[in-house]
């Protein structure tokens, strides 16, 4: 069956579409790039399929790490899954959970969460123009905004430009829904596994979160200052944790980030002068 059937959605039945998913795996890119009419469900499902790719698997495993961490910290399964759903951003979740588990102040936790949330602003600013024309309804834009976190954002930036504009919002909502579902399943699985598997494997699950964060930061680093922030923040974290527990992440971010910004700009300035 060719996808000419799919591009004439005169009430294409759902069974036909799912058959198409099975048979048209190789030509999905061509299919999505087709600017003609395509059933919205099809575009949405294609977006959801992104969650089955490598980044989706990493995200699911990292949520498993979060679930394991939550179990370890003494959080209830419900609260862990609820937290995953309403934040959909692992750094904020880990920061807040850590703060609560250590009995730190709630205000301090909220401030640290806010600081991790600031990085979402530039992500939003860079992805919204890709989703935009014609400007989608506010409810759809707010839903899309909720799905902006490192993995869905990276996949969005990579895949959206290949699609015709009228299909991008639906496709991205599909990516977000798929990724979100993957994280909720991952959280539940990690939570349950952490309680029942050998200690060594629990430790392995817990280890996924920090290494995933760090490698994602490396993958996203572009400017000199990004690399400096990565190194300085890493170095500041442990001593500040000993010196100012509870406020350590705030300080690591503000001090490390500002030093990296100033030094990075100086460094770029020197390079420009030499040229």
């Amino acid at each position, binding site marked *: 069956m060719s996808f000419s059937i799919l591009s004439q959605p005169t009430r294409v039945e759902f069974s036909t579409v799912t058959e198409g998913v099975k048979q048209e795996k190789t030509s999905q890119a061509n299919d999505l790039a087709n600017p003609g009419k395509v059933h919205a469900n099809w575009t949405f499902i294609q977006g959801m399929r992104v969650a089955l790719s490598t980044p989706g698997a990493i995200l699911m495993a990292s949520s498993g790490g979060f679930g394991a961490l939550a179990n370890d910290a003494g959080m209830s399964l419900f609260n862990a899954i609820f937290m995953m759903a309403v*934040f959909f951003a692992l750094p904020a979740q880990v920061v807040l959970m850590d703060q609560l588990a250590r009995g730190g102040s709630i205000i301090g936790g909220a401030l640290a969460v806010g600081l991790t949330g600031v990085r979402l602003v530039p992500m939003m600013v860079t992805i919204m123009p890709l989703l935009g024309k014609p400007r989608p309804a506010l409810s759809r834009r707010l839903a899309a905004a909720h799905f902006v976190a490192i993995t869905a954002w990276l996949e969005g930036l990579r895949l959206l430009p290949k699609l015709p504009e009228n299909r991008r919002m639906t496709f991205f909502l599909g990516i977000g829904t798929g990724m979100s579902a993957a994280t909720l399943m991952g959280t539940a699985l990690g939570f349950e596994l952490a309680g029942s598997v050998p200690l060594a494997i629990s430790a392995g699950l817990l280890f996924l979160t920090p290494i995933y964060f760090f490698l994602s930061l490396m993958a996203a680093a572009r400017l000199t200052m990004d690399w400096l922030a990565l190194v300085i923040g890493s170095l500041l974290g442990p001593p500040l944790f000993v010196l100012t527990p509870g406020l350590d992440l705030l300080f690591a971010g503000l001090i490390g980030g500002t030093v990296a910004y100033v030094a990075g700009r100086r460094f770029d300035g020197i390079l420009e002068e030499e040229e």
Partner: protein
Amino acid sequence: MTDGLLTSPEGTLLILVIAILAHEPFRWLGLYLGHGIDAQSEIFAWVRAVATALVAGLVTRLVLFPVGALAEVPLLIRCTAFAAGIGIYLGTNKHLGAGVFGSATALLAMQFLTQ
């Protein structure tokens, strides 16, 4: 005082309130700014650097001062597995999956070998 919040309905409410007041607004702000402001501007470069340093600080803290099962793993193994993850990532032409899963596998392998 914050102990019970991890499991209680009050904790659920707190999570929701913090998400709505301290986290989601940044997404809304980005939505609003996305129409006019330059993503290349200086303030965003600084914001990015601060966010990067903060998460990096969290990473080293999670590795050096872990809680729970990971705390049972010797420091040297944790650091070696972390470095192995970075090495695998760079060695596989920046393959995120290889780095992440390779690192966790290295941690597991070293634990079994040293037992």
